Each structure stands twice: as C-alpha cells, then as structure tokens.
C-alpha cells in the first residue's frame, strides 16, 4: 500500500537509524544519507516522493540546500524539514522556497506519519486531476476530429444540394433533362 519512497537526510546517526526503522516498519521504501553531499548523489541516481531532511547539518550543504538541489532535479518531490525549536523562522523561510512542511525536534512519529499521509493524499488527488485533464484532452481531440470531418462533409453536401436546387429550378431546360442533370450531380458525390 505504502509504495512511497522516502529519503532521510540527517547527520545524527541515532535519529537517522530511528527514522529509517520507523518508516520502513510503516511500509515505506527508505534510503538514508548522512549529509547533503551523499543526499545529492542519491538524488542524482533515483527519484523520491518525499525527502525528510535536517535543517542544520555540518558542511556546506544544509537542509535548505538539499531542498534547492532536490527541487531542481525534480519539481514534484516534496521536502519536509526537521528543525530545532529555535530555527522555526528558517523553516518557515524554507517553506516559501517550496518545502511542504516542517517538524520540530524531538520528532513525534504520529505527527510525522500524519504529515506523510497528507502528502500521499494530496499527491494522489493531483495525479487524478492530471489524469482527468489528460483524458479530457484526448476525448476533446477525438471529438474535434469527428466534428470537423462532419462539418466539411455537411458543407459539401449542402453545396451539392444547392446545385441540384438550381438545376431543378432552371426553367430554360425541360423537366427531364433537369432531373437527369440533378442525378448526375448527386451521383458525383
């Protein structure tokens, strides 16, 4: 059921292990990275539905940078930031950059699962909307082809009928030759 793929990025080995175990137990497919560089490498290799990243990590790549790199590789990936209480402002700034949510440490797993479920729901609704949009486009295309073909055929038939009408009303000819000429016009269609 939970086919969602999640990448966990955290420099703290205890939290990393804990997240990995709990998420796997919940049925998600999980990869872990101990810093931003490892995360970037994994992101280049495969696509994830959700990235769970610590905001503050040693080295040049923090949570914000992971967010930026991930979004550049795949616009559709959703990023949740894990932050210490003191860095909530930074987390809010990250949401402006496209993070979908943030969690404060210590991590409350019930809360985490709720957030992930919400993402799953939104994603499936979005996918449905896109599917419907696609299907509508296809239907519309097929319908327009049929309608346009019929439109041209109807116009040609009307043209013939106009010719037949003129022919039949042509009082300079005798009735029999009018009928013969009309039949010729109709046969030519």
């Amino acid at each position: 059921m939970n086919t969602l793929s999640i990448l966990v990025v955290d420099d703290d080995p205890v939290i990393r292990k804990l997240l990995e175990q709990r998420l796997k137990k919940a049925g998600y497919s999980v990869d872990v990275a101990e810093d931003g560089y490892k995360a970037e490498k994994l992101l280049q290799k495969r696509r994830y539905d959700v990235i769970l990243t610590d905001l503050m990590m040693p080295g040049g790549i923090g949570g914000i940078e992971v967010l930026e790199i991930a979004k550049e590789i795949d616009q559709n990936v959703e990023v949740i930031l894990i932050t210490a209480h003191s860095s909530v402002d930074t987390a809010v700034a990250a949401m402006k950059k496209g993070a979908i949510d943030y969690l404060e440490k210590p991590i409350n797993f019930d809360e985490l699962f709720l957030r992930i479920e919400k993402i799953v729901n939104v994603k499936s609704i979005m996918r449905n909307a896109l599917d419907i949009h696609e299907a509508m486009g296809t239907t519309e295309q097929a319908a327009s082809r049929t309608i346009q073909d019929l439109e041209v055929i109807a116009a040609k038939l009307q043209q013939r009928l106009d010719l037949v009408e003129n022919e039949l009303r042509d009082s300079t000819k005798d009735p029999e030759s009018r009928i013969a000429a009309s039949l010729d016009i109709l046969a030519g269609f």
Partner: protein
Amino acid sequence: MIKITPSEIKTISQYIYDISGIFLDHNKTYLFETRLSSVAEQSGCKSYQELYNKAKGDRSKEIERKIIDAISTNETLFFRDKGPFELLQHKLLPEIIDARTPKSGSLKTNIKIWSAAASTGQELYSIAIIIKELIPNLSRYSIQLLGTDISDNAISQASYGKYNKFEIERGLPQAQLRKYFTALGDFWKIKDEIRSMVTFRKMNLMMPFTGLGKFDIIFCRNVAIYFTVPDRKKLFAKIADTLNDDGFLVIGSTESLTGICPRFVPKRHLRSIFYQKK
C-alpha cells in the same frame, strides 16, 4: 454551501439567461450551488430566492456583475489547443497581410482581430505574441487587437495581465515565458510591449454589436456552447455582419456551424478548420 431548490433553479437560471444569454442545464444543481453559494453569502442572503430578489432590486448592478463573474467559465491556458494558433500563424495572418498590404509603400497595413470571448486574456495575448514573432517591422502595421468578455472580473484580470504559475506554465514554452513575461514572486506579468498591443473591454455577445467596426479575423471559441440554438444563430449572424468579406472566423475545435449559420463555409487547413463567408 447553501442548497438550491427546484423552483429557485427555475428563477435563477431564467435570470442568468436574461442578463448573460448563458443557458444552464436545470439538472446541474451542483453547478448553481458551487458557483453561486459564495455570491449569496457575500451578499448576506440565506437563499437563492433572496439573492435573486436582491439582485433585481440592486440599482448599481453590483450583484448582477458578481453573478456573471461566478457563472462564466474562465479559460486559463495560453495557446490552449495548438491548432488555432498554428492556423493563425501559417495561414490566416499571412493571407490577411497579403490582402491588406497597400501597393504604395508609404501606407500602413491595417489589420483588425477580435477575441470575442477573451476571458482573462490568454487567447488575445497568445495572438499578440504570434504577431510579434511573425512581423519583424511592426511599425509599418496598424494592428488592432480587441478582447471582449461578459465578465468584469475577467476583463480586469486580462487588462492587468498577471497570471499564476499554474495558469502560465502549461502551454507556454519557457523561452516565450521569459521573453514576454516578467516574474513577480509566484506570478508572471505580461510585458508592456505585448500589453500595449491589445485592448480589452466588457461586452455581452447577446446585445447588438455597436461601435466595433469590421474585423479581418474573429476568434469566437467555446462560448456559443453555453447559448441556446436560437441564440447561437443570432450570434453568428451578427459575427458574419462584423467580419470583412475576405475575413476569417475561428470557432472552438469541438464546435460546429452546421445548421447554425449558412453564411459561413468551413475550410480545412492541416488539422484545423476555419470559416469564411460565402
């Protein structure tokens, strides 16, 4: 959401028809409720009958405008359905330019194009972008691009030319997006060079067309579908009167004029159809 009763549907749909020509299927209860519930609430009404009474008594016509805004469907894509725009670029514009370019080199080429159900402006701006790219020496041309719509809201949004990411990123290639729009946070705004090419104004297609003059190309896509057959006949007869004899009419790709207007003949170009007067 305020629930609508069958008798209210009768009253309200007749009222909407009278003010806009839009005919709403009586079975589509949800359509009335989803579109009009918030208008009723905003106007302090507890029922649609009350909304109707209030709208009828409102001299400023503010509620009438709100109802039209809510009920009219706004197209949100640029270059929606590539067909008509390829048609414009490769067939209609080149032919009109040929026909309208004066023999004497000093005179300007006059071309008038009308987007009759302009909605929030995407169609007319798409046309303007095509013209900008097709004609390098625009100063030798006098090109009038008019967009009209029944909804005040749509017209003011069109005039402002600001679109959100979702409205713009589908249909519009990145290169054109960056060339003709300026980023404004999560929004994109049309650049002045394109904005200055077009004019928008409010117009109800059910009313007589006054002061429009004649056009070389008319786009009237996906609006007549909301009208009754007798009203469609009236509309396209008026459009025929407003189109130059060698001009072109483009309708929606799933629309038909068979049995609606005998004055137009369909012509095929690649995968699209356009109409000319007989």
